């Protein structure tokens, strides 16, 4: 896995203190949000577990002996959710990070469907995520929750219809022509 190079911001001690001045905090929030999103992209993280992330080098920098407090980790993740780049789990213990927007994932899936002529066929969500036909595609192995949101985004555009199955992974989906 590619080694992620942290931006200079990650090695400034004041980055780890929630700034008291609003304008500065707004900038700080943007920097943290971008950092979390990019970090998740590089490490292919979909569900960011708060307790795991807290211990990782994302939210701390041993070289300068600074770490974000639990409170601030939640604050910046909350801001990431607020700007639409993530979604909280109902119990707020983890965060579904959209380093690629669900609608963009949806586009990728739809392009594959279109290119392989699967329009009109009933596919299971499992087939799309784990099926041998999608090996090598960017969305192969995509987190279930992200896949569902991607398909919902497509459904909203009228490009597919989601068919209820017995469990989440046995959901079916039928793509429009």
């Amino acid at each position, binding site marked *: 896995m590619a080694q992620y190079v942290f*931006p*200079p*911001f990650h090695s*400034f*001690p*004041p*980055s*780890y*203190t929630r*700034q*008291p*001045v609003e*304008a*500065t905090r*707004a*900038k*700080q929030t943007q*920097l943290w949000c971008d950092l979390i999103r990019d970090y998740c992209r590089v490490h292919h993280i979909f569900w960011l577990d708060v307790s795991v992330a807290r211990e990782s080098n994302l939210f701390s920098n041993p070289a300068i*002996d*600074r*770490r974000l407090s639990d409170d601030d980790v939640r604050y910046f993740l909350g801001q990431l959710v607020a700007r639409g780049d993530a979604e909280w789990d109902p119990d707020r213990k983890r965060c579904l990070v959209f380093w690629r927007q669900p609608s963009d994932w949806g586009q990728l899936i739809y392009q594959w469907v279109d290119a392989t002529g699967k329009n009109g066929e009933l596919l299971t969500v499992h087939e799309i995520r784990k099926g041998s036909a999608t090996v090598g595609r960017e969305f192969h192995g995509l987190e279930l929750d992200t896949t569902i949101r991607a398909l919902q985004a497509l459904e909203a555009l009228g490009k597919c219809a989601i068919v209820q199955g017995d469990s989440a992974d046995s959901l079916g989906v039928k793509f429009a022509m």
Partner: protein
Amino acid sequence: MCATIGVDPLTSKKGVWSDLLGVGDFYYELAVRIIEICVATRPINGGIMSLRELLPVLQTKRITYTEKISSDDVERAVAKLDVLGSGFKIMDVGNNRLVRSVPVELNPDHTKALTACGTKGYTNASELQRLTNWDAYRTRTTLQFLLQNEIAWLDAQSSEPTYWILGLVAGASSQT
């Protein structure tokens, strides 16, 4: 970006600037680049940027000219900008030469606090008091001013609250 200061250097060869400032294309472009960089990094450094930090960014940003830019060139370009009343100014603070791109008035106390930050880029109340013999109130107001004007960032995780001037910290401006 240029719209903010009311000129369009791309369309007006002989425009407001050349009439007003009488500068050639070199300082013309240099000034525009300086404004661009200062404005782009303002959220990080609050509009205070050391020349030492500005020069390398400036060198990589320029397209038309390839000559090496000296700090003297920057000073000249910034001096021309003064006519526009946009708040651009070169300040000497201790060992640092700074470009100030916000119309915030720094009084001698603020300047002393910036001097205390030196090239390391940060200071705290006790260091500032030791250097200036100020009382606690004066020290606090000065540091608060820098914080409120987005020039300083607070680090509350060291033994004493530390005030960082990111415009003086190496590499900080490459963030944006």
